[in-house]
């Protein structure tokens, strides 16, 4: 039974605005992948249809695109799984990227953030200093297995809502690669890497888990959290992000609750008049609506138990 590819068409060399073409597929069953259908459309129907692809096996990461509004790998997406009720499939370029030609996008912002990390091992001595290969324990290697599966398809970057409003944010994949080297026992540049990724707005990660839609199940979120902890361990705490984390911990330890008033002051800086003035309009709106959080918070019952948990686990807080 026939189905239709509803394809975004745009050529930056000739077009001012994009348009869409509908290509009917009659000779391929629904059991093929979206990439198979696109290959067929290009080979048999319209040779000008442009998309990236290489391995056809979800290893190279080239064919990431938006399929019915959901970003993923075309080579890993069966046609039958995404056919809409009208038997069409919408094919679009990944969001958060500028289209170049049809589904092909400019990947430079993504690769720039990756290369800024110096994504290669930087051991403190040379390989020639070692009589045998460098040994890594299975436990240490286990930490890196998941992120090693990243194929740099940029799906997580395309889905990231922070990137969509602020392209300065490094994005999930780059931070996951920072984790990959920060956690590698052979590497010697832990602090430099933490500082670099911190400069690339590590702390803008909003904990939204949009990157959990990773087609390779790398799921960078937990790696991002680990990199945040590494920046605190390396003493890179003079930023709103780490200050926020540390003051939240402080107020929870003191009262059992996240004390909103204290957290805002601690994050911005109690004597940072310019910073406090920037958050003032939001605070004034809350106040005018009668929503003033308490200036002082009474600790919850048995707060000593909570302090015992923090002390036992040696959890850092804002000093």
């Amino acid at each position, binding site marked *: 039974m026939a189905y239709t590819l509803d394809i975004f068409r745009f050529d930056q060399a000739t077009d001012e605005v994009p348009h869409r073409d509908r290509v009917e597929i009659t000779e391929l069953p629904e059991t093929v992948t979206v990439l198979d259908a696109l290959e067929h459309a290009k080979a048999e129907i319209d040779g000008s249809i442009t998309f990236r692809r290489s391995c056809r096996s979800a290893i190279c990461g080239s064919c990431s695109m938006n399929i019915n509004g959901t970003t993923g790998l075309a080579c890993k997406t069966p046609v039958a799984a995404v056919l809409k009720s009208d038997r069409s499939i919408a094919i679009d370029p990944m969001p958060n990227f500028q289209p170049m030609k049809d589904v092909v996008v400019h990947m430079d912002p993504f690769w720039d953030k990756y290369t800024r990390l110096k994504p290669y091992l930087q051991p403190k001595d040379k390989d020639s200093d070692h009589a045998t290969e460098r040994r890594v324990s299975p436990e240490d290697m286990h930490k890196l297995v998941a992120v090693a599966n990243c194929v740099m398809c940029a799906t997580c970057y395309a889905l990231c809502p922070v990137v969509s409003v602020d392209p300065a944010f490094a994005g999930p994949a780059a931070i996951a690669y920072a984790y990959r080297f920060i956690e590698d026992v052979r590497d010697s540049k832990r602090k430099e890497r933490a500082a670099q990724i911190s400069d690339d707005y590590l702390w803008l990660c909003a*904990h939204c888990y949009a990157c*959990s839609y990773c087609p390779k199940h790398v799921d960078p979120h937990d790696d991002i959290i680990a990199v945040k902890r590494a920046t605190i361990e390396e003493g890179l705490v003079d930023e709103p992000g780490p200050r926020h*984390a540390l003051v939240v911990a402080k107020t929870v330890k003191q009262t059992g609750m996240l004390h909103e008033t204290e957290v805002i002051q601690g994050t911005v800086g109690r004597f940072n008049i310019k910073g406090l003035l920037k958050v003032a309009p939001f605070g004034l709106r*809350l106040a005018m609506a009668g929503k003033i959080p308490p200036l002082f918070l009474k600790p*919850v019952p048995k707060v000593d138990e909570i302090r015992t948990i923090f002390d036992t686990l040696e959890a850092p807080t804002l000093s």
Partner: protein
Amino acid sequence: MTMVMDKPAIKGKSKSAQMRKYGFFPGCVAKESCKELFNSTMLLADRLGIELVELTAASCCGASVLNDTNRDVARVLNARTYAQAEALGLDDVITICSTCTGHMRAANKELLEDERHMGQANAILGKFGAKYDGTVKVRHLLWLLADDIGLDELKKMVVRPLNGLKVAPFYGCHIIRPESVNGWESARNPHSLEDLIVALGGEAVDYAGKTRCCGFHVQLEKDGIAANMVGQNMRMAKDQGAEAVLTPCPLCHLALDGYQADAVSRWGRTDLPIFHLPQLVGLALGIDPSTLGMNKHIISPGLVLQEHDLAPAHVA
């Protein structure tokens, strides 16, 4: 990827919850800057005939932030909360905040699936005579409404139908993602809020922003970042005809209600009132809008409610 399914999201499933007793974890925001959420939840519970037993000695869930400093501490803090629920004979812990839901469920999953984590937690809890046996289920009020009350039953309780009020659901993040932790409904295509809005007599507005981030967790990291995320999402909702927004999360509420004004220059005026989940349900069940705290919103819902004959003129 492991799916954790408490119960499937079945539209219209009916199961009496009369006199059922639940552990209640209000979270920090509902006790601080969004007290109207706490109050409207208690009013709704009374109207539904269920008892919410507040876990008054519970701590913050970690709010996604404690993991940034020490991953173990949030897990053990939540184990302490679950131990309190167990000591009261309560298996269900009901939350009214998506962030609490996601992070408490994540902590519980780690405790239940890894005996080292459970052992660590109980070793620390033992210092003050507490113990967690692993019987607690963390659920959001939304799931209680859909599963334990049932939308068919809820529909029968509606005395003030929403009269076609066009409501855009805003799921946000932590009630749906990651699916390996939540999984109560599809994270990509959730529909529980839409089903609820329709059951209450409203019209559900579909838009791409409904499962995106509100920006609350990064509001203080960089100027304008949360406002931009709010503006982007509210623009999408407004363009699809929304008159108001419904959210199950007080953090989303604070961001969406508080930052729309800051997003005007880039995204245009949207001025969408943002309802807490128990406020909109309570309204349809006949509770007075002011009692529900609808006068405590930055963007007043008064005009929209009056246009649909849902509120008297004094709610402005």
